[in-house]
C-alpha cells in the first residue's frame, strides 16, 4: 500500500508538519482571541518539532534532531506559561482578550 | 514500543509453540492482549475494588458493608455496573454534550494505558517500553485535562471549581512523584520497569526501598504523591462532599460516572503497581531466586508465582490506600499545596542528592550488600 509506506516515510512526516504549520499560521492570523493565537503558535512549534524528529530518523540518523525538538518543547512550555500569564493580566486589565484590543502600540 | 512488543510476542509464542496460533498475524495478537488486559484485568479489578473498598470501609467503621447481592455481596459491583448502565443518559442543560462524553473517556484511557508497561512477571509484560516509568507518568497526566473538561462541560459552578482544584492538584503532585522516581532510575540506570524489577532480586541489591535510606524516604513520598494524584482521601478535596457535593463528577451519572469511578480505581491500582515495581521489587520473590532454584520449574509456573507475588504486593498497597481513606482527615487546599511544594518537593530533591552521593560513595551497593559485604569480608561489589 503506497499510502502506508508514504505515511511511514519522511514524506508523511513532512506533509503532516506542513499541514500543521499551515493550520497554525491560519489559526494565528485569523483568531481574534489571544488564546487562539497562542494555540496557533503551539501548532507551529510542534510542526517544527516533527520536522526535526523526522529528519533525525529518516535522514541524518543523529540524535541532534531529537535534542532540538526536546528544547523546542521545553521552551514552548515556558513560552506558553508566560504568554498565558500575560493574557490573564491583559484580561484583568481590559476584561477581554480580543487580540485587536491590544493595539496601544499602534501608530 | 516495537521492540518490546516483540518480547511479548516471544513469550506468547513460547506458550503456543507450533499451534495454529502462529499463523495469525501479529497485530491480532496485539489487539487480543490489549483486550485481555483491559477486560480481564483492569475493569474487573475496578469493579471488585469498589466492592472491596466498601467492605473494608464498613469493616473499619464497624459495619457489615454490602452483602445483599450474592454471597457476602460479592456481586455488588456487577449490580452497580448494571445500575450504571441502565441509568438515563443525562447531559446537564447548557453543558457541552461532546465534552461531557469525551471527559470520562480521557480519564479511563489515561489510567488504563498505564498497564502496558507494568511487568506482571519476568516475561509477562504487555510491552516493556524502553521508557516504561516515564511512559506511565506521562500517560497518567492525561487524566487532569479529562477531569477539567468534565467539570467545565457539566455547566456547574461547583463542579468547575472542583475540576480546577483537582487539575491543579494532579499537576502539582506530579512533580514530587517524578522527583521521587529519579533515585530509582539513578540506582537501576534504566527507565525500563522490567529492568528495574530484575535488579531487585535477592542476590541483587534486594528491594529498592531498602537500598539506601534516601530511597526509603522517597518510597513514602512516591506513595503519598500517588495518593494525591488519584484524589484519594487525604487529598480528597475535589470530591469533598461537604463543600462541592461530588466535585467534578457531580453532574455525571450512569455509565459516565461509572467510567469516572472505574478510572479512579484503575489509577489507584496503576499507581500502587508502579510503587511495588519500583520500590518493592515487583514480581521478585523475597529471599528466593527462582532462577537458581534447585529444580527448574516450568516457565508457566514461574510466571504464575511472579504474578501472584506482584499482585499480592500491589493489593497490599491498595488496601493501605483504602485504609487511609477512612482514617486521615481531608487536607485544606492551602495545606495541600503547602505540603506539596514546601514539604515533598524539597525532601524529594534531598533524596535525589542523597541517592546520588550514596551511589558514588558505595558504588551502587544497597545497604544490605554493604552490610553483607562487611560480614563476608569483601563481597563482590557489583
Amino acid at each position: 500500500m503506497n499510502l502506508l509506506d508514504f505515511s511511514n516515510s519522511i514524506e508523511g512526516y513532512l506533509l503532516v508538519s506542513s499541514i500543521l504549520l499551515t493550520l497554525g499560521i491560519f489559526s494565528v492570523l485569523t483568531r481574534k482571541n489571544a488564546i487562539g493565537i497562542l494555540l496557533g503558535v503551539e501548532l507551529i512549534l510542534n510542526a517544527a518539532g516533527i520536522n526535526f524528529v523526522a529528519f533525525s530518523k529518516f535522514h541524518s540518523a543523529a540524535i541532534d534532531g531529537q535534542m532540538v525538538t526536546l528544547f523546542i518543547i521545553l521552551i514552548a512550555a515556558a513560552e506558553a506559561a508566560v504568554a498565558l500569564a500575560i493574557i490573564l493580566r491583559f484580561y484583568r486589565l481590559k476584561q477581554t482578550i480580543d487580540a485587536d484590543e491590544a493595539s496601544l502600540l499602534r501608530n | 514500543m516495537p521492540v518490546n512488543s516483540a518480547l511479548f510476542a516471544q513469550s506468547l509464542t513460547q506458550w503456543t509453540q507450533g499451534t495454529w496460533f502462529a499463523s495469525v498475524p501479529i497485530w491480532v495478537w496485539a489487539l487480543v492482549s490489549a483486550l485481555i488486559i483491559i477486560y480481564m484485568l483492569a475493569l474487573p479489578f475496578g469493579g471488585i475494588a469498589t466492592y472491596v473498598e466498601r467492605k473494608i470501609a464498613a469493616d473499619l467503621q464497624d459495619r457489615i458493608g454490602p452483602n445483599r447481592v450474592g454471597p457476602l455481596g460479592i456481586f455488588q459491583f456487577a449490580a452497580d455496573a448494571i445500575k450504571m448502565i441502565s441509568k438515563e443518559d443525562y447531559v446537564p442543560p447548557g453543558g457541552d454534550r461532546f465534552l461531557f462524553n469525551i471527559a470520562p473517556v480521557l480519564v479511563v484511557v489515561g489510567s488504563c494505558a498505564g498497564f502496558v508497561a507494568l511487568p506482571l512477571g519476568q516475561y509477562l509484560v504487555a510491552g516493556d517500553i524502553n521508557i516504561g516509568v516515564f511512559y506511565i507518568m506521562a500517560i497518567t497526566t492525561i487524566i487532569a485535562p479529562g477531569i477539567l473538561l468534565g467539570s467545565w462541560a457539566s455547566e456547574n459552578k461547583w463542579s468547575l471549581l472542583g475540576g480546577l482544584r483537582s487539575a491543579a492538584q494532579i499537576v502539582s503532585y506530579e512533580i514530587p512523584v517524578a522527583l521521587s522516581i529519579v533515585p530509582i532510575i539513578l540506582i537501576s540506570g534504566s527507565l525500563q520497569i522490567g529492568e528495574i524489577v530484575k535488579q531487585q532480586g535477592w542476590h541483587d541489591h534486594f528491594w529498592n526501598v531498602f537500598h539506601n535510606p534516601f530511597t526509603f524516604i522517597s518510597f513514602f513520598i512516591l506513595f503519598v504523591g500517588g495518593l494525591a494524584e488519584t484524589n484519594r482521601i487525604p487529598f480528597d478535596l475535589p470530591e469533598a462532599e461537604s463543600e462541592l457535593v461530588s466535585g467534578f463528577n457531580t453532574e455525571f451519572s450512569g455509565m459516565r460516572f461509572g467510567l469516572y469511578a472505574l478510572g479512579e480505581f484503575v489509577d489507584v491500582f496503576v499507581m500502587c503497581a508502579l510503587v511495588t515495581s519500583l520500590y518493592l521489587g515487583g514480581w521478585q520473590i523475597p529471599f528466593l531466586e527462582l532462577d537458581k532454584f534447585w529444580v527448574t520449574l516450568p516457565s508457566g509456573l514461574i510466571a504464575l508465582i511472579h504474578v501472584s507475588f506482584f499482585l499480592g504486593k500491589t493489593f497490599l498497597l491498595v488496601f493501605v490506600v483504602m485504609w487511609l481513606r477512612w482514617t486521615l482527615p481531608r487536607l485544606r487546599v492551602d495545606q495541600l499545596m503547602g505540603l506539596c511544594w514546601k514539604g515533598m518537593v524539597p525532601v524529594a530533591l534531598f533524596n535525589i542528592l542523597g541517592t546520588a552521593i550514596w551511589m558514588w560513595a558505595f558504588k551502587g551497593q544497597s545497604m544490605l550488600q554493604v552490610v553483607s559485604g562487611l560480614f563476608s569480608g569483601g563481597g563482590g561489589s557489583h
Partner: protein
Amino acid sequence: MAQSCLWIVALPLTAFVIQALVGKRLPRQGDWVSVLAILGSFALATPIFLKLLATGAVHETLQFNWMVMPGVDAVSNSPILNKAVTLTVGVLVNNLTAIMLFMVTLCASLIHIFSTGYMHGESRYHLFFAYISLFSAGMLGLVISDNLLTLFMCWEVMGLCSYLLIGFYYQKLSANNASLKAFMTTRVGDVMFFLGICGLYYVFGTSNLSQIYEGIKTGVGSDVTLLGIPALAFIGFMLMMGTIGKSAQFPLQVWLPDAMEGPTPVSALIHAATMVAAGVFLLVRTYPVLEAAKVVLPVIATVGALTAFLAACIALVQVDIKKVLAYSTISQLGFMVLGMGVGSFAPGFMHVITHACFKACLFLASGSVIHSVHTQDMREMGGLRSKMPITFLTMFIATLAIAGVPGFSGFVSKDRILGDALAYGMTHPSQMWIPVLGFITAGLTAFYMFRLIFMTFFGHARDEHKHHHAHESPITMTFPLMVLAALSFAIVFAGPTGIHSVDANLLPIHWFDHALDHVKTEMGVQGLHASEEVEHHAHSLAMIVSLVVAGLGIFLSALTYLKKVISAAAFEKALKPVHTLLWNKYYFDDLYIKVVIQKLFLPLTVLMAKFDDKVVDHIFVDGWAKVAMVLKSVIAKFDDVVVDKLAVDGSGTVVSAGGWVLRQFQTGKVQQYLILTFIVFGMLLFYMTR
C-alpha cells in the same frame, strides 16, 4: 681682435649711459666723455684696419649663446616647437667689417670733435652727445654683428637715434614733423627687412650670416617656395625694401630732405656717412642671397638708377644748401644701389666709403658756413671765399671728389661703377638705359655741386649784413674738414697694398680690390658675369664718357653761375612745368599725404573702427552680456524650481509621505505583524529552496 670689436661698441654705449644719467652735471656737460669714447673706439679699430692692410685678409668670429630654447617635444609634436633652438649671437670680423669699422669710427670721431664746437651753447648739449654716442654704438654694432637679428637690433637703435636727433630742436614744429616722418618711413622699410629676416630664418633655419653663406653655397633654399613665390626672391625683395627704407631710395626717400631739420653734424654723421650707408651695407652683407635670387638684382639696379637721376634733377632747383646736399646724398646712394644691382660689388662698396668721406666733409663745411652766416639759404650767401678760406678750400676739394674729377676718390669708385654698369648694359642690351642714365646723372651731379660752390663762395655777397659777420670757424671745426678733405684724394683708395702690391700682370693692385676679392670668394659672390674683353672695353669707354660728362657739367655750371652767361632764370621760365615739378619734389609728399593716407589708410581705419564697434562690441561683448543675462535668469529659475522646490521641499515631503505610508503598516494589531513575518518566511523558504 673680436674682443676689441666688442669694446669698440661698448665704449660709445657706456658713454651714452654716463651722458644720459649724469651728463648735465659733468664739466662741459660731458661732451668730452662721448668724444673720448669714440676716439677709444677709433683707436681700437685702426689696428684691425692695419692688420687688413698688412695681411690682406682678416677673418675672426666670436660667438656666444644668447638664448637657449630646449626642444619641447614632450608637450607638442609640432616641428617648429620641438626643435631645440639656440640663438647664437656674436661678432664677424672680415675685410668688410674692418674697412667699415675704420671709416665709421673715423667719421664719427671727427664729427664728435666738430659738434663740440658747432653745438656749443645749445640748451640740451649733453643730451645731444648722449644721442650721438648711442647712435655710433648702434652703427658699430650693426657693422660687427655676425647675424641679421643683432644687425636688425642695431638698425632699429639707429632709427631711434635719427628720430631723436632730427627732432633735437623739438620746439620747432617742422623738426618735430620731420623726425616723425623720418621714423615712420624708415619703419615701413624696417618691417619689410624683418620679414626678409624671417624668410631667411624659415629657409636656412638660422639668422647667422656665415651659416647662410654656407647654405647658399650648398644651394639649400633654392627650391623652397613661400605662398607660391620662390622664397629667395621674396627674401631678396624684402631686403631690398629694407635698404630703400633706410637709404632713402625711391619711393621712400621723402624723409631725408626733411631730416635736414636736425643740427648739421647730425646730418653729416647720420644722413651722409653712416646710417644711410647701413642700407647699402646690408645689401653687401647679404649679397649672396640677392645673387641666389636671380630676379632681384635687375630690380635693384633699376631702383638705383631711377633714384640717382630723379634726386639729381631735384637738387638742380634747390636753394637751401643742406637740401642740395641731401638730394646729392640720395643720388650718390642711388649710384651705390645701381652698382650693387649691376653686380659691381667692389666698386659699389668702395663708393660707400669714398662717399662717406667727402659727403661728411661737404656737410661739415656747409655746417661751418651756416654757423658763420646763420642762414641756410644760398641766395643770401656769396663771396665767402675770402671770409672762410679753409672751409672754402676743403669744400672745393670735396666737391671735386663728388663731381668725379680724376685724381679724386669720387672718380675712382664712380667710374668703376659706371664701367661695370656699361658692361652690364652691353651684356644685357635691354638694360642699356641704366648706364646711359648713370652717365647723365654724373653730369648733373657735377653741375649742381659746382652751382652750390659758385653761389656760396664766388660772386659778390648778396647780403652785406651776413657777409660782414661771416668769419672762419674755429680750429675744432676746421680740423675735421681738413682731415676729411685729405681723405678725398684718389691715392688713398688706389694705393698699393702691403706685400701683394703687384698682381699677376704687374698692374698695381688696389688694396681695396684685393680685400674685396678675398671677401667675395669667402662669401661666394660671383659679381658681374661679363667676359674679360667686354669688361675691359666697357671700362675704357666709361672712363672717356664720364670725363666728358663731368667736364661738361662743370663748364655749364660755371657759365650760368660764375659768369652769368646763361641765365638760370631763363631756363626756369622755359622749362616752367619741369621746374615746378622738380620744385615740388615730383609731388611725392602730396602723393603720400593725400592719396596714401587720406584715401587709403584713413578710410581703412574708419572701416576698422566701424567694424570694431559693430561686430566686436555689439555682437561679442554685448552679445555675451545678453547671453549671461539669459543664463542668469535661467539658472535663477532652475535654482528656485529644481533646487528649492524639488530638492529641498521635495525630499521633505517624500520623507513625510514615506513616513505616512509606513505608518499604515503599524496598526498595533499583532496579527498583521505576523502576516508580514509569515510572508517573509515564505519568501525566504522559496529563496532557500529555489
